[in-house]
């Protein structure tokens, strides 16, 4: 770890003004579960570390009229055990449950996880499939970014150096919709070999898929929205064959690289299997609503 100056702003305004002053020379610390590892391995060496853990008002889960809003400093563990999350988005609670281990979930925050932008992160696929947005603020103002547009490259996002993520908001699912997420990993809590989130909206009476959104984790430089796989299902009757076909398309949309988690072929294979399983689970949930 290289030496840095530690700054601990008391509120959001102070945090923003520190960021606009130090910009690229600063890194934000929230739960520290990703940043500290990077610091220790000297993969990042910021001159300033801005610890926002004492910034008030960013730790909440709120059921708004149209959707659920989660403050960026909310820990994974809080999301995991939140009754509101369990009721509205069980797939998110499931994703949190398999995110690393409880010690990490007690510290790590949802804003830190997304901003870190590890392509294998556990939250992004579900948030993409659910059509979630993130809010970021800076000394200059605020803006809202759809999660599908948030990630631009390996561990790079659209967040500017002077911006801080403050909230994640997820629109409620319409009736007849359901979602599911699963990570296949070598060990429980590991980075994914591949992960798949699926959100399906059914036309209840006819058994027709109105729309489907499928997102993939750990199989590219960023989390990937598998648009073609989702499109292939729209308007189709939900048969085993179309689900399998969607899996095959998703496997092609994946852009994995080989690493210790698996080869390119194996990761694509897992994407296919998970897409099948998550679509089936999402549809079962959609029907039960």
């Amino acid at each position: 770890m290289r030496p840095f100056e530690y700054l601990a702003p008391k509120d959001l305004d102070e945090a923003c003004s520190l960021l606009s002053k130090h910009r690229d020379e600063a890194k934000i610390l929230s739960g520290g579960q990703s940043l500290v590892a990077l610091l220790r391995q000297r993969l990042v060496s910021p001159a300033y570390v801005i610890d926002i853990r004492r910034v008030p008002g960013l730790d909440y889960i709120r059921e708004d009229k149209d959707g659920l809003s989660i403050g960026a400093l909310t820990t994974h563990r809080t999301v995991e055990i939140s009754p509101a999350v369990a009721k509205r988005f069980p797939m998110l609670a499931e994703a949190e449950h398999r995110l690393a281990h409880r010690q990490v979930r007690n510290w790590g925050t949802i804003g830190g996880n997304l901003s870190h932008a590890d392509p294998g992160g556990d939250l992004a696929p579900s948030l993409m499939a659910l059509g979630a947005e993130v809010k970021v603020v800076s000394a200059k103002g605020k803006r809202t970014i759809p999660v599908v547009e948030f990630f631009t490259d390996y561990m790079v996002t659209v967040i500017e150096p002077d911006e801080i993520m403050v909230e994640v908001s997820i629109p409620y699912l319409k009736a007849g919709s359901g979602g599911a997420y699963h990570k296949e990993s070598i060990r429980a809590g590991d980075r994914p070999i591949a992960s798949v989130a699926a959100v399906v909206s059914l036309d209840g009476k006819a058994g027709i898929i109105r729309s489907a959104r499928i997102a993939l984790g750990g199989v590219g430089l960023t989390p990937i929205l598998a648009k073609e796989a989702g499109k292939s299902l729209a308007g189709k009757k939900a048969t085993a064959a179309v689900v399998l076909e969607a899996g095959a398309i998703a496997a092609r949309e994946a852009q994995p690289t080989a690493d210790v988690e698996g080869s390119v072929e194996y990761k694509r294979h897992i994407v296919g299997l998970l897409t099948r399983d998550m679509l089936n689970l999402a549809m079962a949930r959609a029907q039960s609503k």
Partner: protein
Amino acid sequence: MDELSTVGKSVPRVDGTEKVTGTAKFTNDFALPRMLYGKVLRSPYPHARIGRIDVSQASKLPGVKAVLTGKDNPEGRMGVVLDRPIVAEDEVRFVGEAVALVAAESLEVAEEALDLIDVEYEELPAIFDAEEAMKPHSEVVVQPGHHLLPSIPAYAGHNISFATAEETPNVYRAFHIEEGDIEQGFRESDVVLENRFVFTRTQHCAMEPHCAMARPEPDGGFTVWASEQHPSEAQLFLSRIFKLPVPKVRVIAPYIGGAFGGKLFVMGMPWAMMLARRTGRPVKVVYSREEVFVDGYSDVPVVIYIKDGVKKDGRLWARSVKAVINCGAYSGRVLLLTGSMVMGATVNYRIPHFWWDSYCVATNEPVSGSFRGFGGVQLIHAVESQMDMLARAIGMDAYKFRRMNLYKEGEINLLGQPTHAVEAEECLDKVAEWIGWGKKPEKREEGPWRIGRGISAQGKGGLVSPYSLADVKVHFDGTIEIRHGATEVGQGCNTILSQIAAEEFQIPVGKVRQISGDTAVTPYDITSTANLTTFNTGNTVRRACQDAKRQIFEIAAERLKVKAEDLELKDGLIYTRGKTEAALKLGDIFVPGGGGTAKRGEIIGHGVYMGRDLSKEERERILKKFGVDYMFCHGACALEVAVNTETGEVKVLRIAQCHDMGTPINPQACEAQIDSGNGFGVGRALYEEIVIENGVTVNPNFVDYKIPSMLEVPLGAEVSSMLPAGVPHEDGPYGGKGFGESTNCGISPAIAGALYDAVGIRMLDLPITRERVLGALKARAR
């Protein structure tokens, strides 16, 4: 034997409270005033000539107190044959070899200084594959002339021959053993089966990384605290390296946070000493986890060729093995593995015709080391996988086939040594019964999952000549102080040794105190490795206790005018045999105040154990054959796995192990050893593998190197760690013997067997990753 009061009881660990509450001190918990932090610059090339090294920028960095290179090396070298320079001199031979050292006021400054050292390298051709490197006239020679180097004294007696030839300069050592006529054996066999098994490199992953702190002393010597399994040998190593009189190097090994064979090489210590010598200040060197993976003397990659012949009636008839061991760039301790590995094939099953060749081959990979099992994991995987396949080939049950070939008590094994205190059959029976061998599992499949069962048996010893000393000091208040050179690496030796002393003096375990692993105080002990601490140091402590009691009884006998042999000791009171009233208090034989006794001074008993008493003839025969006379342990494993036919994932659902250990000194501690072996074994079988590409370690961290967590191993009611009845070993302390290394050796072949049972694929190599399983399933479907 009389009823024992402490030995054989599951008394709580004497270090338990300290460790659970976090008050136990490990090397890295210590710091000294004015201490500097040492860091090591490591080679990025697998083989290169070192040109100019510019340290000027690094030296100028504020806070840097010393930057040293190979030019500053002490005279001596490291390794079993003293071949590794402390810091590389003219050449580097693996990625991660030390090229320069820095001492600085803080760790951060030391790390920063490493980046400022400029080293010119001229790359040389490198070789990584041991089978390639052992071919005659290899173009790349890792260390010319290496095969002529002699071993250091402690290992000189071990049978690691020099039978290597000029045309194969990368073959550091070779070992051969044979029995019967191997060709005739195969001719007479009804079925002959041959396979090649490949094993990759794994790390011990001790929780505490390697760590050493050296303090320069005013007399020119050093005190060194280190996470080190053999402080006595370390002292000798270091005094040789620095050309110092032995007592001028004091080595202290506090509690050690896990070792598993990985802390035997004076690692980090010479660097801390070099920097301390230059700066005149204490220096601490702590390996990062990455450094542990790269230069932590990981377990060896091995290729095993094994050919077996068997009779239709189930008798094993012939076995030949060739093992090629990738030693890495320097000798480490792996030279001994050429001999050690053979035990996995020679001490469990009766085989009339046997042939063994092993080769330790140098490459430009990181230095390999010893690892819990010391070759047993690899060899027993190969042997036991073969046993499954042989049984199948002759249509016999795998459990019955093993059982009928096991050595029985008294049989002379292929090392020429007697099978003794063997409970191999009972172990096999117990695990078979627990798993329900021969009965159908409740379910064979669920969704994509298929269920299967596997079984294995195994025998092992340890390749270290027993030589342990201990002292026992008797205090006037009845406290017994054991001074031993073994190290509490987590295996529980301090508890076992306390129990032995408590038994001898008939006192509670709490009245025994230990001083261990401090060469200024504690006597020599060869190492805490190879299953041997209970056996060797246990015997030694018991003898030291008896020597101390003899002294007490002689003084008391004179005082009481009775014969010394009529006296007994219990709870700090001296009794005349048969009397219920004490004749003396222990304190009565001391001068008032308790400083010592009037005529003999302190009561200190000495103990020594150097193996069984053998006739000259017997000793010569055994040493000629193998080099070390030892005790052997036997065990068995049975387990159940589930295999996902879509993903290739393998889960161990239930696991049972049973191991003979003579009389268990502490049954609960023995069960815990077996439990720990389960985690090790499952990790090795299914997950763990250091990936090295062109000499570069690709996954030197706990994210990319997969150690199973609690969630990947069976727990609770799904685990049975069993002990057999306990046949006392006639030479062990209270009949006890060691067994800890065996507990991780039988798991991978049982898993491979269970996989075959579940889905009909035979995985020869380790680890059995999900991707390899899926590949095999697809290949079978084609």
